């Protein structure tokens, strides 16, 4: 079952490299911030773990994981948008 996972991993590595290798320096900061938001996808794991939590202890930890994951996602995308919004009002 991990075989397809390895397939996905290798393709994603090359995609990641290809997609951003021509980025101009002025976009380094917003791009880093945007990528930062995307790894917030860890929230999916947090939701799964929380969704199957049974003991109080694991519920507390799971709850915390979902909150932190959401912080990463929401904070990351909002801050990136705020940076890019400034580039837009140039005219």
């Amino acid at each position, binding site marked *: 079952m991990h075989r397809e*996972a390895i397939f*996905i*991993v290798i393709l*994603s*590595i090359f*995609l*990641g490299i290809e*997609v*951003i290798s021509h*980025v*101009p*320096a*002025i*976009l*380094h*900061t*917003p791009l*880093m911030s*945007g*990528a*930062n*938001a*995307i*790894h917030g*996808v*860890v*929230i*999916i*794991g947090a*939701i*799964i773990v929380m*969704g*199957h*939590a049974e003991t109080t202890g694991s*519920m507390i*930890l799971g709850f*915390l994981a*979902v*909150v932190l*994951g*959401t*912080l*990463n*996602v*929401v*904070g*990351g*995308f*909002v*801050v990136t948008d*705020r*940076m*890019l*919004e*400034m*580039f*837009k*009002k*140039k*005219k």
Partner: protein
Amino acid sequence: MDHLSQLNTGISILELTYIVASVLFIIGLNKLSHPLTARRGNTLAASGMGLAIIATILFHQKDGKPIGNIGLILTAIVIGTIIGWIIARRVKMTAMPQLVSFFNGMGGAAAALISMMEFPHISPELIAKSGMANGHVLAILLGLVIGTVSWAGSMIAFGKLDGKIGDMRVKAMKYVNLSVLAVLIGFIVYIMSRNVQASSELTPLIYVMFVISVIYGVLFVMPIGGADMPVVISLLNSFTGVAAAMGGFLYNNQVMLTGGILVGSAGTILTILMCRAMNRSLLNVIVGVFGGGGQTNIGATGTVKEISLTDAAVLLSYSKKVVIVPGYGLAVAQAQHICHELDKLLGEKGVEVKYAIHPVAGRMPGHMNVLLAEADVPYEQLIESDEINPDLPNTDVLVVIGANDVVNPAAEDDPSSPIYGMPIIKARDARNIIVMKRGMGKGYAAIENMLFFNDKTRMLFGDAKSTLQNLVNEIKSL
């Protein structure tokens, strides 16, 4: 009910959504790397994330059981959204690097928590079949270590950029770090080679590993100096990506895999690009040989000449071409708005004003562009250093505001200098140079700047904001 969520091809709605979300991430990242489409790219990636989250809550099943505790999950999401939104909206643009580091740490912590909770529940059948030495266990352990290191490191980076934590440079640090890393790997090997009935027997070891990973994360970032912080943040960013991907292995979850690995690899490339802009190797950054004592100082030869506000005002007003080189000093002083006022004022007098932006000006590559854009400086006025350098011999006055290392000629002249070979803005080619600075302190790289002693250079000491304000008033009263 299974046939409802199952299409003819056998692909579930959940998997289909994950494919769509992954594609949105890829398109989003791609659009983020072009100035015109960047904002749309961010929105696309965000909508992919939203889709993946909703589909997971609705359709995810583990051993036939759907997601429970939905009320609590939604509460947690609402809390995270409110806090994240408020922080992201409120924080000043100068504090952007810290903020990215903070959010990055949150992701790392979430990944570590997932590993900690999953470890005691590894299925006994899997352990009976292949012992502890399997990919599942490895993914959990790596997720724990990488996530924790990323979290602890990001928090230290956050503290450093916020000026709350200083640098700590000890020669032996390198060896201490390597030994801590070796201990962590030892733990992984030990756990995976145990012969147990249930993984929960080994749970205490997981907590010990967590503590050691925190220590490693702290030690890893502590010795790295100010100018190298962006590289570290970018590196930690890709760490968190890999930690998220470990969760993808764990749950055989495609969207976590693609999202995590995309960031892992894109983050690594970005880190390398940043290093290249500073002419530093990644290894140098990590081992931390930059700045601090050690290197020979050529010593201050010649004298520094000051210029009065009135003279500076006259010089600027009667120039044809002026180039402003902004640095982090401008950002800390929050002087970008008044700086824009100066350039508008000069523009009205018929002076052509441009900004020379070094790739690593500010605290992060591209940070200066964000700050100047905040002050409404038109995009067209911001010129990258490679492009403006040939134009500098025809420039009447070059004004350096709170920048130092990026205009240091030692990068071209002095092979013993730690910044030798770094591309710079060739400030000394300009006809006149005015340097605005708080005092004679050195830049982040802690090296002497011969530009300040150049014959053509005049110094204007003081806080960037008040000096610029006084200069603007002076020009107005001419």
